[in-house]
């Protein structure tokens, strides 16, 4: 079964829609990529500082307690969310067949967002933070971030309302969900934490915020991408649409309950971490149903992975989503979680979400979108391949070393009469893996930013055929042709 070929009018219409999104979407992508490079540098420095505590002792800006949160804020708000917002705008315009309007408002709000992120990172880095992971910035910064997000993403709703396609795609459902859920969790967490009347719930909310950001924003946006890119490139419809819709609702009804299991045994009523743990385990159903659905869609097209950059990044991102769901389900059971709680594992788990599944899927989307909105092809397929492999090796190195290092550290901490510093000494070697990972990821993203800047400046390759991996430029007019599939 194949998807019907578009008519010339439809191709012209798509080109109009793509052109309408060009300036805001390219703005979000390039500034996000610049933030990503800053975040990888901060990630590398913080890992180095953790491994060699004596480094830069005199300098207050180089302490781990400032570098690490600055890195997390730059990675999540500067890169991940900003790139995700760009993808949301383009995808919504394409799916609903509406050109993007209010370009000026979106660009102004985009600058406001970047200013907000810069303030968030700098307030943490310069010593005004409050040590609440991902919400560390000074209290006056969050309204800027919330306002600019709303001013950008609010346009997604009228676009969906006026959609001209006959069906409601599951990607649209994910995008509308993500658009609405993020302000809700962000405002709730910030208002309640800054209110400060329930200190213990403030800490619990910070854990709730992180898992909700992952399952209520990052997972929906990356799934919207996967549900679009995988059928588009393989030329096949989704294997089971009812299953896709059902897993959307399953994820939606479970995601909000997660988070408190990160503080199992903490000063909360025990039912809270139990409910969170159960929800995290049940999410496995939604994630597996989704990932298997997407993989069956690709059955028999595995050669496409060799050629299409978008598909390769997206599929890898989906596999990492499954890995993330498994690891977080494991860590929310008492037997496994109590030893990994507070160990290096938690860094591996969070980074797996931010970089492993979200960023990799978004890279896939960016490799798909940018040639369409700039009207030029990526300069080099080899650089895309290097970007993929360095990122893949980087994130896998980080997750594996942090998992094994976390087990080593947690094992030492679980022996009550062993000196506490043993857990530090025995696990600190694994932090070398974390520093190495950020160096690899840093190199891959230098190449990514370089290519993206070339596209932004209009120096892309002018050609009929797309840039593919393992194929000479212009050799084939699609990944399917290169892979020899009809």
């Amino acid at each position, binding site marked *: 079964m194949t998807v019907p070929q578009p008519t010339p009018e439809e191709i012209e219409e798509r080109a109009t829609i793509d052109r309408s999104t060009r300036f805001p979407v390219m703005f979000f992508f390039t500034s996000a990529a610049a933030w990503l490079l800053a975040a990888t540098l901060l990630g590398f420095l913080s890992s180095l*500082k*953790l491994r060699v*505590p*004596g*480094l830069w*002792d*005199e300098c207050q800006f180089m*302490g781990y*307690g*400032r570098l*690490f*949160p600055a890195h997390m804020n730059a990675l999540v708000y500067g890169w991940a969310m900003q790139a995700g917002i760009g993808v949301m705008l383009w995808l919504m315009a394409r799916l609903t067949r509406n050109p993007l309007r209010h370009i000026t408002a979106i660009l102004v709000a985009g600058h406001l967002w970047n200013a907000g992120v810069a303030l968030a990172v700098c307030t943490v880095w310069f*010593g005004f933070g*409050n*040590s*609440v*992971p991902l919400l560390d910035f000074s209290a006056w910064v969050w309204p800027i971030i919330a306002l600019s997000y709303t001013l950008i993403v609010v346009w997604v709703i009228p676009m969906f309302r006026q959609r001209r396609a006959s069906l*409601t795609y599951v990607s649209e*459902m994910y995008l*509308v969900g993500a658009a609405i*859920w993020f302000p*809700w969790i962000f405002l*709730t967490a910030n208002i*309640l*934490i800054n209110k*400060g*009347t*329930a*200190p*213990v*719930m*403030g*800490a*619990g*909310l910070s854990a*709730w915020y992180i898992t909700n950001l992952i399952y209520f924003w990052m997972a929906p946006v990356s799934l919207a991408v996967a549900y679009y890119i995988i059928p588009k490139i393989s030329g096949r419809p989704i294997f089971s649409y009812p299953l896709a819709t059902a897993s959307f*609702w399953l994820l*939606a009804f479970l*995601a*909000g*309950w997660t988070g*408190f299991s990160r503080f199992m*045994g*903490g*000063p909360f009523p025990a039912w809270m971490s139990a*409910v969170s743990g159960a929800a995290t385990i049940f999410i496995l159903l939604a994630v597996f149903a989704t990932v298997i659905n997407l993989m069956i869609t690709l059955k028999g097209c595995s050669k496409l992975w060799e050629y299409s950059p978008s598909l390769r990044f997206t599929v890898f991102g989906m596999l990492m989503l499954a890995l993330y769901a498994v690891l977080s389900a494991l860590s929310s059971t*008492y037997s496994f979680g*109590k*030893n990994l*709680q*507070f*160990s290096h594992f938690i860094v591996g788990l969070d980074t797996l979400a931010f970089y492993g599944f979200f960023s990799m899927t978004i890279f896939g989307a960016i490799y798909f979108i940018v040639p369409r909105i700039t009207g030029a092809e990526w300069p080099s397929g080899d650089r895309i391949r290097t970007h993929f492999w360095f990122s893949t090796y980087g994130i896998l190195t980080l997750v594996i070393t942090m998992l094994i290092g976390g087990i080593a550290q947690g094992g030492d*901490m*679980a022996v*009550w*009469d062993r000196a*506490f*510093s*043993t857990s530090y*000494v025995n696990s600190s070697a694994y932090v070398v893996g974390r520093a190495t990972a950020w160096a690899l990821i840093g190199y891959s993203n230098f190449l990514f930013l370089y290519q993206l800047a070339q596209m932004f400046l209009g120096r892309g390759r002018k050609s009929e055929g797309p840039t593919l991996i393992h194929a000479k430029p212009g050799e084939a007019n699609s990944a399917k042709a290169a892979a020899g599939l009809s």
Partner: protein
Amino acid sequence: MKSDPFVKLIAGISLAFALPWIFIVILPFIANSNLEALPYAEGEEVEGGVTAYPDKAFYRHGSSDYGRQIYAAEGCAYCHTQVVRPTYAGPDMWRPGWGGREADGLARETQARDYMLETVAPLGYQRIGPDLSNVGHRITTPELMHQHLSDPKSLDYNSGMPAYMHLYEESPYGEGLVPTEKAEALVDYLLSLKKDQPVPSRG
């Protein structure tokens, strides 16, 4: 009413969020807000004429309010937790000094009221260093605490803690390192960290 897919979608995603939002965020937040102190029962022996748990004087020490901000700003919570878990979740209570004064039979897991002077309980992210819930009982003098901050390796060679040199300055009178106002406040805060005040029997 004609069913509009848009309205149905918005209603669905709002309901999906509203349920956990009410039941695991808002209601527990209200229940945990402005916790009242629990009075001790008649005849319960408590030192220092303290009548209720928690007692603010028990948790406050010098400029510990400013020190709390330094603790947060320096990101101490990224390497140190302040949560003592019950034994089913880990051996925290067995570690010497972590749960409080074992010798007096006062060691216990941390409870919500122990964090009454905080705005956000610094439960922590990782345990690169030891738990600090009761560090005020383990390190009792300001001198030793300053040494811990300015030269941790001199106390434990295996320590992974960096020296917080920017909190200290060289004395102009040749007296070596002198703590800044920030270091004094941070030490006051750390010395105030005690989470083993006896809990009233009916609490």
